[in-house]
């Protein structure tokens, strides 16, 4: 019997996943695992940290590696605690937009400012999906949700741009319909030190698609068509590509925990 090459990275007991049919989380998980394989990452020396939300379940319990699954919004400081103590480990945070940019927004901002040596992957499904699809910090203006039944009155946050401005070494945004580009960005991010942030705009067939009567395939088509390169996207479109790429020394280096240019991820 042929086995999927990524199965080695997954816990058999955790399959099938709890994700809804058509969810983008499987695509993100696949891209991340392929990127880790291409980078030659040692899974035993990789620690995944996540908070609460659908995307937080990507590593926990699915990945056959160490994972810490903590409180809503608190994955980034937990991950930094691991990295500060064990600089030789590669520490990766996976979370959603509400988790990382909403309740955990302050931690995200300061981790980027410190250039903390973490890779943070934010799956942006535009709402608080796990709790029913309520409005979040990245929800498009005017979109109706269970807590904005007359349409979202607020503007969304451009999280990638904010994190880039805060001081991250690497920031990129792709969508679940840009998997080769996403994988390339993740490989690049894995090879760098300092704070690295990759946002993936993703479809939520259950909480967004259902409300808009949009099938997953139509959502994927929308992700593709609405995406324009960074700097060329109009309001309501998705800017994709790299926001920043630099090599300032990371926090661990500044603290003397690692030598300059050492230990990535």
């Amino acid at each position, binding site marked *: 019997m042929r086995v999927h090459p990524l199965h080695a990275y997954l816990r058999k007991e955790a399959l099938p996943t709890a994700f809804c049919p058509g969810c983008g989380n499987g695509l993100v998980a696949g891209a991340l695992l392929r990127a880790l394989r291409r980078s030659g990452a040692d899974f035993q020396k990789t620690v995944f940290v996540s908070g609460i939300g659908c995307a937080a379940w990507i590593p926990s*319990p699915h990945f056959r590696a160490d994972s810490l699954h903590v409180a809503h919004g608190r994955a980034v*400081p937990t991950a930094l605690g691991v990295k500060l103590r064990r600089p030789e480990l590669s520490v990766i945070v996976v979370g959603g937009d509400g988790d990382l940019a909403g309740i955990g927004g302050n931690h995200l901002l300061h981790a980027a400012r410190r250039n903390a040596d973490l890779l943070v992957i934010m799956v942006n499904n535009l709402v608080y999906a796990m709790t029913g699809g309520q409005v979040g910090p990245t929800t498009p203006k005017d979109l109706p949700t269970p807590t904005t039944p007359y349409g979202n009155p607020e503007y969304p946050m451009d999280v990638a741009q904010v994190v880039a401005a805060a001081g991250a070494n690497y920031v990129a945004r792709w969508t679940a319909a840009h998997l080769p580009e996403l994988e390339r960005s993740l490989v690049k991010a894995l090879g760098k030190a300092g704070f690295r942030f990759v946002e993936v705009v993703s479809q939520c067939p259950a909480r967004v698609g259902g409300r808009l009567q949009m099938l997953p395939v139509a959502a994927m088509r929308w992700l593709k068509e609405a995406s324009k390169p960074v700097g060329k996207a109009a309001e309501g479109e998705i800017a994709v590509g790299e926001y920043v790429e630099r090599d300032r020394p990371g926090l661990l280096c500044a603290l003397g925990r690692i030598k300059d240019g050492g230990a990535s991820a």
Partner: protein
Amino acid sequence: MSPSEKRFWSGNVALAEGALAAGVDFYAGYPITPSSEIMEHVARELPKRGGVFLQAEDEIAAIFLLIGASWADARPMTATSGPGFSLMQEGLGIAAMTETPLLVVDVMRVGPGTGQASKAAQGDLLQARWGRHGDQIIPVLAPSSVQDCFDLAVFAVNTAEKLRTPVILLSDELLAHTWERVEVPKEVERVERRRPSGGEPPFGSSDPRVPPPMPRLGEGHGILMTGSTHDPWGFRRTADPETHRALVARLWDKILLNRDALCCYEAVGVEEAEVGIVAYGSVARSALAARKLLAGKVRVGVVVLKTLWPLPEKPLQLLAERARLILVPELSLGQLVYDVERVACGHCPVLSFPKVGGGLPIYPEELAARILEARR
């Protein structure tokens, strides 16, 4: 007894030194009066000793930095005061559920709200006990001298490691800024965290008194740690009543079945007591001073609690059997008194001596006067 050195320290410095002596090698915190000297002291000392210090963006980040570091094999601590302690409750709940050793020091100040930043109070007692949602118990210790600050910091770090639990140390502003002589032993006990020898579940234990061994990150254990209801291997089982019941029962038993080893107190003149006083923290010093003031007039017995939770019930029961009444002075409207009343169980009346000091301590003279009045 091992040889010791004499030092002249404030309560805050003694606390920091005790924790460092017990092997604390990771500190993350956020500045707040009246605890900041602990953080400043550790910020100077830790880098010299190869440890890690980070000033966090807030107290929530601080406690989660500790959780991450603890799983990465650190002995972590933080210190804060009331408002910051409130923010740390979220992380303390996760630490209790995930059995993560760490130390949180709360140097109590006047509340509620931002209250009086540089004044002492004891209003955080029940927050320390019940501040998290859900059924859990975290050991809570309370020094009443600068020597205690050092000794109990050592005991707190070792208790966290031994029982794989967060531990709370409740100090107060008076103690924090009191300078006293401290006997510092040349060698301090360091309890090593239990490690898996192979095949043991990281969240299950056949003996409820003994915590499961805690694996280190990055050694191929495939650790599944979660703050949600989990089975002995760490898999989330959030819809299974029996998994949850068994987990909560074990977390509870782990602390309560070790009650005798956890309970520190000082009992002075309890056997022949006519009137009893139960106190902790800086207030306990006023209680002992009041006892002296009344010498020859009233036989006062004092139980100074150094462990608050689990509550040392035995000395309190003895006091209730001996004394005609018990007074519980607190620098708050009264929180400890309810449990003393429960333990006294009708053997004698238990009177609260509440004081909202607003910056004033409880004076020995007012305690002595209250005892004379109550005895009439």
